[in-house]
């Protein structure tokens, strides 16, 4: 039997297709990025090796730091606004009873199954100064309703709202599942001891949800770093580079500014930052199991 389990030929056939595909589509391109990151390649024609110049430039590039700042802002928005609301909603939902729970869960998650392309353009229309939903709502409350939501100064907040809105159902669902996994006996014991709803939530639900919160916070930070598609369609990083994010910025550098080499250098740093952030978060939140 040992022989069957260590048959090299069989192992090779099992592992090879996946490893080949992964190498071809993920690992090789990253190595290629490292290579092009050391060049001044424009995307066409010849190019020179320029050592670490791209990286030195990046350190001084305001837009690169703006992209990082925006990722930090977005992560903060997820953690400070989206997640507390999602936990509270999940805790309330848990008390609703079967039919209402199913209905609300279905509604909350619905935006997540809709393509980012649709979501981004839908919000572009919601923010539209002429017929947009948001200005029409503002008018109902007596405002002029002429705000340019995606203009200078407000754009980054408008982008954050879309992303917080879009991801709300996903976060809620995971917290809801976590709360459902809490043993109901604990709640009964708390009720017998005379704990009110608030105490039960703070003393039982929240502490037991710690592992779920940690997973969710990690996911939120990573997705804030990786953000691209919504911004690409909603603002393209503009006005100026106010709503720039790393992935969008490297794309823009390569395909609009024809600085393919520089774009690749940003790619390399982008990958490093994502790996570093994941590692760091797993150090901050060590797994008990």
């Amino acid at each position: 039997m040992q022989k069957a389990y260590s048959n090299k030929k069989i192992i090779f056939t099992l592992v090879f297709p996946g490893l080949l595909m992964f190498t071809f589509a993920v690992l090789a391109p990253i190595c290629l990025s490292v290579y092009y990151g050391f060049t001044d390649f424009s995307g066409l024609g010849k190019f020179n090796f320029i050592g670490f110049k791209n990286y030195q430039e990046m350190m001084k590039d305001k837009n690169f730091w703006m992209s990082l700042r925006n990722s930090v802002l977005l992560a903060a928005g997820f953690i400070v606004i989206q997640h507390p609301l999602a936990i509270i909603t999940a805790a309330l939902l848990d008390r609703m009873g079967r039919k209402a729970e199913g209905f609300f869960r279905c509604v909350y998650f619905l935006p997540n199954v809709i393509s980012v392309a649709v979501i981004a353009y839908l919000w572009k229309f919601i923010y539209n100064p002429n017929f947009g939903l948001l200005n029409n709502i503002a008018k109902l409350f007596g405002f002029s309703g002429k705000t340019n939501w995606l203009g200078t100064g407000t754009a980054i907040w408008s982008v954050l709202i879309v992303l917080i809105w879009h991801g709300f159902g996903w976060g809620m669902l995971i917290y809801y599942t976590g709360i459902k996994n809490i043993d109901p006996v604990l709640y009964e014991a708390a009720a017998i001891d005379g704990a009110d709803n608030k105490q039960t939530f703070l003393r039982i639900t929240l502490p037991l949800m710690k592992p779920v919160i940690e997973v969710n916070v990690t996911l939120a930070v990573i997705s804030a770093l990786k953000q691209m598609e919504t911004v690409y369609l909603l603002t393209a990083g503009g006005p100026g580079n106010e709503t720039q994010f790393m992935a969008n910025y490297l794309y823009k550098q390569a395909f609009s500014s024809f600085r393919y080499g520089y774009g690749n250098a940003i790619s390399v740093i982008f990958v490093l930052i994502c790996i570093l952030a994941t590692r760091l978060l797993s150090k901050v939140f060590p797994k008990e199991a």
Partner: protein
Amino acid sequence: MKGKKKKLTPARIVMWFVLLVFAVIQIFPLIWLLDFSFASNTEMFTRGLLIWPENIRWDNYVTAFVNGHFLLYLKNSLLINILAVILVLMISVMMAFACTRMHWKLSGTVRGLILLGMMIPIHATLLPNYIIYDKLHLTDTIWALLIPYVAFSLPQGLFLTGSFMESIPKEIEEAAVIDGCGIYRVIVVIMIPMLKTSLVTVSIMTFLNNWNEFMMASTYLSSPKWKTLPFSVLEFTGIYASNYSVQFAVMALTAAPMVILYLILNRHITEGVAMGAVKG
């Protein structure tokens, strides 16, 4: 506490209110989208939140359906995503079996390498992959989407099937192997049926992630041949820049297949996502 009939106490009214407010925030933009897709361009600029269209403008949808290449792009999306799911499932199970059951030196290294993929941002590969696919003449072919879709779904697939497989006792398949059953047959006949729940989760996550993807698609494709559903929306904003109601219609139309699928499979999808996310 559970099972008891719930009375409408003030606390419960507040709960209902809070949950309804969030429901309205989540759903109202979508209702607004649907509403405006039936209106005419002039009606859009009236006051008020929703429009009661004088005539329901089905022609918006006709334009969206015909000029948005809806059927072609839907077919492409379905084909590419179903193939991607099948490939991810096959490769994940094969690799998971090799990494959790078989004895070989590099088992841990290979698994770790693939799992590293969960941290790597998809968009960091856009630039180099464009050059690679261009050189290999893969741009504008189905492979330009299928390969990266499968490769980027693989880490999560391997993670979920791998950790599920570890929780299955080895005795059953070992008995089969002693009786002379080959490894491939063990995987197909014994392993796959036991992995059912995690395979459903992997399928749902893979499908959801790739169905909505358009960044790679718009980088690696230029002809309509393999373009996927999001392109109906992307192309319309250029062609019908000032015809807003048609743009609303194309957005509602391209969202429809997934929304319908979601409403039918609601339970399975939310449970699959919850399981995939908590574990992953």
